[in-house]
């Protein structure tokens, strides 16, 4: 009997994997076509309602893959940002995919800046971006030039380097801060803050009973801390935060997108619209 159940389990998972493959094939092969409505319809049809994996709430928090040409609407980006009920102050880009594409990530960062988001962090589970920090920075500056063109001088980006917190590049007034994060900023960061506090206790500058949430929060944030992420856009099919800033994401909305490869501005903006529709009751 166990053999029968195992066989049925394998069939079920084979079907689910097939569904995923078909969806991603459609997403890749038809992004060139500008028939967005048709694409969304096909993708919706291919997601069997009985499995309900795409979490079809009216807010549509797990997005149906879209596509389309890169729209050249930098003038409209700023007004798009203003048109939203609320805009996140800090967006975390969580790349939960094996092979990151620097151009696409740079696009996302530049779009964030263009719509008026002040802080952007980029994270992956293996520390790839941290190790290739300068490559990512170069790509962001390049895309900033390409997408924002003549306007790029109005937008400046400050890269927070984790080792010494000095700005790498500063032009005119600072409009956006970009930080590259890795798993070392998560639990190990909390451990470092804990050690710092314990040292103060050992030196009798603090008592253990004095510690509260706000004190630990300031120890963690340091002098050039960013605000907590309001929104995390998670790219890829892995349903986890994969170690992204555990302390800081207590109230963060987590919106999943299928992939960052060939991500379009429309898909990015849909995630922002989704965020704008979220209601936070803060316990009340």
């Amino acid at each position: 009997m166990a053999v029968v159940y195992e066989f049925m389990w394998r069939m079920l998972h084979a079907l689910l994997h097939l569904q995923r493959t078909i969806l991603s094939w459609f997403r890749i092969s038809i992004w060139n076509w500008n028939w967005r409505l048709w694409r969304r319809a096909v993708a919706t049809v291919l997601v069997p309602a009985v499995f309900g994996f795409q979490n079809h709430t009216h807010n549509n928090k797990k997005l149906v893959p879209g596509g389309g040409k890169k729209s050249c609407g930098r003038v409209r980006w700023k007004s798009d940002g203003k048109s939203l009920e609320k805009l996140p102050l800090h967006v975390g880009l969580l790349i939960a995919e094996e092979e990151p594409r620097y151009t696409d990530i740079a696009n996302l960062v530049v779009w964030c800046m263009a719509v008026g988001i002040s802080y952007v962090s980029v994270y992956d589970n293996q520390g790839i971006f941290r190790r290739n920090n300068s490559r990512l920075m170069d790509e962001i500056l390049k895309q900033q030039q390409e997408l924002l063109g003549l306007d790029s001088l109005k937008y400046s980006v400050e890269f927070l380097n984790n080792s010494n917190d000095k700005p790498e590049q500063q032009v005119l007034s600072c409009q956006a801060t970009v930080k590259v994060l890795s798993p070392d900023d998560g639990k190990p960061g909390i451990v470092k803050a804990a050690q710092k506090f314990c040292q103060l206790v050992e030196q009798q500058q603090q008592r253990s009973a004095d510690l509260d949430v706000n004190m630990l929060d300031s120890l963690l944030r340091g002098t050039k801390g960013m605000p907590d992420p309001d929104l995390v856009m998670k790219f890829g099919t892995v349903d986890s935060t994969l170690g992204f800033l555990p302390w800081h994401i207590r109230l963060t909305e987590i919106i999943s997108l299928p992939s960052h490869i060939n991500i379009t501005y429309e898909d990015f903006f849909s995630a922002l619209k989704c965020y704008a529709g979220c209601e936070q009751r803060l316990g009340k």
Partner: protein
Amino acid sequence: MSWIRKGELTLIERLSANILKAGPMPKHVAFIMDGNRRYARKLHVERQQGHTQGFDKLAETLRWCLNLEIREVTVYAFSIENFKRAKDEVDGLMELARQKFSRLLDEQEDLEKHGVCIRVLGDLTLLPLDIQKLIAQAVLATKNHNKCFLNVCFAYTSRHEITNAVKEAAWGVEQGLIKPCDVSEFLLDECLYTSNSPDPDLLIRTSGEVRLSDFLLWQTTYSCLVFQSILWPEYSFWNLCEAILQYQLNHHALQKARDLHAEARVLRQLEADRCCAAELLQQTGLGKPLDPQLRQEAVQKYTAEREGRVHSFLTALQEKRDRFFTDLNKGSIASAKA
């Protein structure tokens, strides 16, 4: 048992369960039981009824988990932030807790028969004293049961939990049991309220919200997160199966990520031990021995000493925690006799 509904799965549910069990199953599932008040509004009933239905749904879900051989469940029953709610709602929730914990104490035989261990996690000193005493009794009565585990997060937020863990580590330093450099991920794991549980494999949040709301932030870094739009009192066996399927689809990738993190953790600890051992040698005036064999021995000696210190500290911490419950319990026995 009032907390675990009686009943068995239907034939089709049993068949589906058996198919699912052919694959990897989560051993520990956490639930954010969201949507009671929206459910009450939907049905045009009082909020309190929404919460009561929510509790009934919890009892049903625990039954399904047992049927699916999920032996550990953690639930977010009441957040510290929820104290901000209207007084009558908070009082209503406290009254519900009072009733349910009292009922639990009447069912001790059943709990023993099924081996149910109840733990309550949170800053219990924020609760009314009579509820603290009921909780203490329930926790002590079921302490040694080990067939299945129910962790109820009550007066809990993850940031408070992590802060408390750091406080405990600092207390250890104050008592001279450990040094600041002994503080590690492992040590903080052991100082959390959830120290007796493995990290949840799967976290399910109902009602469509897509955030963690200060729940198990440390413990769910590599858990499968499933956000379902159904309201908690409407949760069904099929919703649970859907979540488990999602877990199974993510299992391989998450295992890989977890292993990577575990490897990095071991390396970090080794590096920290090397630094501390070298520092110690400097301090004792021996300098850095050129012989790698001697250096290796110094690191091993340091690691053994550190592990010894941590072990004594954790023993003292466990005694402190047990004393909190036994003192509360003594208080309730004394007042019962009076």
